C-alpha cells in the first residue's frame, strides 16, 4: 500500500528536484538558443559551482557568501570559456562544438579531482536551516523547503532578467535570430559572452545550493547533465518556459518512481521523453526549426 504521507513528501522532493533541474536546464537552453552551442560541460559547471561554494564556505563560514562566490566564479569560468574557446567554434560544425565542450567538461572534472580528490565532500546547510519543519501532517527537512524557495527565487530572477529588461529582450531576440540582431548594430559577441556567463551561472548557482542535499563529488554533474538533456528534449530547445515545465515533469517522475523502485527512475524518464518525441517532436513548448 502507498503511504500517503510518504507520497506527498516524495512529491515535494520532486518539486525541489524539478525546480533545480528547471534552473540548470534554463541555463543550458538559453545558451543553446542564443549561441547555437550545446554545452556538454554544463554538468561540470554545476559541479564547479558546488566546489567553489564549498571553498568559500570553508573560508568564510557564510553560506550566503558561498552562494555568491560560487555563482560568480562559475560565471567567470563561463565568460573565459566563451572568449577563449567557444568563440572560435561558432563557424565550425556542431559536432566540433560538442566535442570541445565535452572535452572541457572532462578537463574541469578531472582538474577538480586532481586538486580536491575523488572523495565526496559534505556541505552542511546553514545553521538556521538545519532540522525539520512540520508542515500540516508531515515533517519536511527545513533546508529542502528553503531550497525550493531559493531556486524559485532564482528562476523568477532569471525570468525577470530575460523578459523584463532590455538585455533580456536582446537575448530573446538572439534566440529567435542572432544574425538579425547582429545586423541591427548590436554587438552580438558581447551578448553571447554575457549569455554564456549567465547560463553557466545558473548551473553553478544550482550546484552550490544543492550541495547540502547531496554531497559533492567531482562527477556529481554527470547525471545532472543527462537529466538536463531529458528536460530540454521534453520542454523544447531554446524555450525558457519549456525548461521550467520539463524540469518539473522530470523531477516528479524521478521522485515518484524512486518511491517504488529507484532503478526504474531513468526508465520512466526515458518513457516520458519517448512519448514527447512521438507526440510533439519539438518538445512540449518548443518550436520547429530551432535545431
Amino acid at each position: 500500500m502507498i503511504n500517503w504521507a510518504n507520497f506527498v513528501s516524495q512529491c515535494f522532493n520532486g518539486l525541489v528536484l524539478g525546480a533545480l533541474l528547471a534552473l540548470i536546464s534554463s541555463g543550458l537552453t538559453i545558451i543553446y538558443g542564443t549561441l547555437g552551442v550545446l554545452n556538454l560541460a554544463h554538468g561540470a559547471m554545476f559541479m564547479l559551482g558546488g566546489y567553489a561554494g564549498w571553498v568559500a564556505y570553508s573560508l568564510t563560514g557564510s553560506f550566503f557568501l558561498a552562494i555568491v562566490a560560487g555563482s560568480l566564479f562559475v560565471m567567470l569560468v563561463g565568460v573565459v570559456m566563451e572568449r577563449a574557446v567557444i568563440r572560435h567554434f561558432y563557424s565550425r560544425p556542431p559536432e566540433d562544438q560538442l566535442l570541445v565542450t565535452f572535452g572541457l567538461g572532462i578537463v574541469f572534472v578531472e582538474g577538480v579531482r586532481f586538486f580536491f580528490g575523488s572523495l565526496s565532500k559534505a556541505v552542511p546547510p546553514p545553521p538556521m536551516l538545519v532540522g525539520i519543519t512540520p508542515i500540516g501532517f508531515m515533517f519536511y527537512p527545513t533546508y529542502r523547503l528553503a531550497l525550493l524557495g531559493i531556486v524559485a527565487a532564482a528562476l523568477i530572477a532569471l525570468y525577470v532578467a530575460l523578459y523584463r529588461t532590455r538585455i533580456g529582450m536582446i537575448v530573446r531576440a538572439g534566440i529567435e535570430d542572432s544574425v538579425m540582431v547582429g545586423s541591427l548594430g548590436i554587438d552580438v559577441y558581447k551578448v553571447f559572452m554575457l549569455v554564456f556567463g549567465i547560463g553557466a551561472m545558473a548551473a553553478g548557482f544550482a550546484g552550490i545550493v544543492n550541495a547540502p542535499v547531496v554531497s559533492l563529488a567531482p562527477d556529481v554533474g554527470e547525471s545532472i547533465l543527462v537529466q538536463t538533456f531529458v528536460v530540454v528534449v521534453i520542454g523544447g530547445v531554446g524555450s525558457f518556459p519549456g525548461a521550467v515545465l520539463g524540469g518539473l515533469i522530470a523531477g516528479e517522475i524521478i521522485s515518484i518512481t524512486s518511491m517504488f523502485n529507484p532503478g526504474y527512475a531513468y526508465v520512466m524518464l526515458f518513457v516520458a521523453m519517448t512519448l514527447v518525441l512521438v507526440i510533439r517532436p519539438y518538445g512540449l513548448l518548443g518550436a520547429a526549426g530551432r535545431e
Partner: protein
Amino acid sequence: MNATIGMLKQRPFLVEALMAAGLIAAPFVLPYLGFTPSTLNRILVWGLFGIGFDILFGFTGLLSFGQSAFFGSGGMVVAYLLTVLNFPHVLAAMAIGTIAAAAIGFLVGLIALRRTGIYFAMITVAIAEVFFFVEFNPLSDYTGGENGLPGVPTPDLFLGFTTIHFNTDQLLYAFLAFWFFIGMVIGLRIVRSPVGAVLSAIRDNPLRAAAVGHNIHSYKLTAFVIAAAYAGFAGGLLGLMQGFMPPDAFMFDTSGQLVMQTAIGGAGTLFGPLVGATVWLYLSDFLQNVLHLGAAWKLILGIVFVLLVCFLRRGIVGGLADLARLAAGKAKPGEAAGRGTVAPAPSIATEDGPAIIQLTPSPRRPKPIDGGETILKAEGLTKRFGGLVANDGINFSVRRGELRGVIGPNGAGKSTFFKMLTCEMAPSEGRILFEGRDITGLGVTRVCQLGLTKSYQVNQLFTRLTVRENVTVAALAEKRGAFRLDPLRSLASVEGLAQRVEETLRAVNLSGRADLPVSELAYGEKRRLEIGLALAAAPSLLLLDEPLAGMSPRERVETVKLLKAISKGRTMIVIDHDMDAIFELAERITVLQEGRVLVEGAPEEIKGDVAVQEAYLGGVAAE
C-alpha cells in the same frame, strides 16, 4: 581523404594488405616501445568498436554519445550465454550477441533518429543512461549488477585434428587481430559501397540527399544498426579478452572514451579510432605506470583532446593525409589546373547546334498513369504563412516536352510555387498531378523517384565529396531506388551507373573537373554541378530555380546553351530573373504576381502584354 580514395581505386587491396602486415608486425615491434600485450589487445577491441562508430559519426555525421549501450548489451549477452547458460560455442555466442546489439540498435535508432543534430546527441546520452541503470538494477540477476559476469571462458577453435585454446595474451592477440581484420575489411566494403556513398552524402547535405531521391531516414537507421552491431561484437570480445564482463562497459565514460579516441585518431577514416585507441591507451599506461601520475592521467588526456579538437580538426590520420596531399599536391596535374588558372571551357554546343543529351530513366520507374499530353497539372494551389497568402489558387499545367518559363517580380511567390510542385512544402489547399498521379504531400524523395526534381536557387551540393561523387550519389537514387540494403556491393557493380555519371558530367561540361573536390570549383562550375545533380536523376520533368543567378555574362551564355541542350526530349520549367534568357529559351511563359497567375502565353504575347509591363514597371505603361 579523396587522395586516399583515389589510391584505393587504383590498387583495390593495397589497404587490406598493408593492414594485415601491420597487424602481424605489431606484436613483434610495439613491445619495444613499451606496449604490453594486454594493451595491444585492448587497442584492437577499441579499434573494432570504433570502426562502427566511425561509420556512424565520421561517414554519416551522426554524433552518438550512447554507444556504451550496445557495447555493454552485446558483451553481456555473450557473457551470459557462455557463463550462466554454459553455451559451448564461443563463435555462435558472439554472433548472437552481435545480432542482439543490432536489434537493440534498431529499436533505439527508431527513437533517436526522430531528431538530428544536438537533439540526437542528447537522446543517445539519455538512452545509454537508461541501459546503465537497467543493467545495474532491474536486470542485475542476469548481468551480475555491479559485479559484472566473471568466468567468461577464453575462446578456442576446433580444427578437426586439434583444438587451439587462445589462452595467452599472445594467442588472444591473434584471435582479436583476426576479427579486427575481418571487421575492417567489411567496414571498408561498406564505405565503398553505394550505401557508403549515400551515407557520406547525408553527412554533407541531408536535405539534398533526400531531394535527389534517397530515403535518408532508412539510411541513417542502417548506419546506426551497423554501429550497434560493431559495438556488440566488440563488447563480446571484451568479455572474452578479460575473462570477465565488466559492468562499466555500460558507463557514459565508455561512450565518451570512444568519441574522444575517434576524434583524436581522425573521424571519417575508419583507421582513426584504432590510432586514437593506440594513443589513448598507450598514454594512459605511460602516465600511470611510468610517470606515476595516478588520477591525473585523465586530466592530461582531456587537455590533449581539447587541444587536438581546437587545432587538428581532422585528427591524427586526417592530419597525416593532409600532409601527404600537401607533399604530393604539387606533382598532381588535376590540382595544378585547379584554382587560379582558368582553363578554357570547351563549348557545349557543336557547330551543328546543341548536342542532344538523352539520359534514359531505368525501367524501375513507375510508368505514367495516363500517358497523355499533360505531364503536370496543379489545381487551386494555395499556400498561406499565417496571414500572408504566398500562393493563391494557382492553376497551372504543362505539356510533355514543353519548356516553360515562370517569371514574376520579387515576392510573387515563384519559389514557394516550386517548393510545392516538388513537394518540399505541402500546399495549404489544392492538389498536384504528375503524369496522372496525385503527388500532393508525397514528399520530395518519392516525387524525385517518380521523375520530378529540381535544381536549387542556392547551391545544395555535397561539399566534401568530389564532382564525380556528387553526381554518383544523385544517379544512385535513380538506379537503386529510394532505399536498398546492399552495403557489401561495390559501386562499380551498379549497372549503368558509371555510364550515367559520365553522361551527366559531359552534359554539364564538368568531365575535366570530375575528380576535384567541390570546394575547388569556380562559382559557375558549382552552378552547373547543381543542375547536374538534378539531371543525374534522369527526371522526366526538371524544375530549375534561377539557374542563371549570380553568373557572369559569359557563364550565362554557356548555361543558356546548356539548358537548351538538356531540354531536348525533356520537360522543363525554368524560373529566372534574366528576361532575355527566358524569352530566348521558353516556349510558353507564366507570369506570377502577388501569388496569382497574372497571364500565360507565348513569349511574344507576354512581351506585348500591358498587365505584365505594368507589374514590372509599376504602372508606367498604363499611363
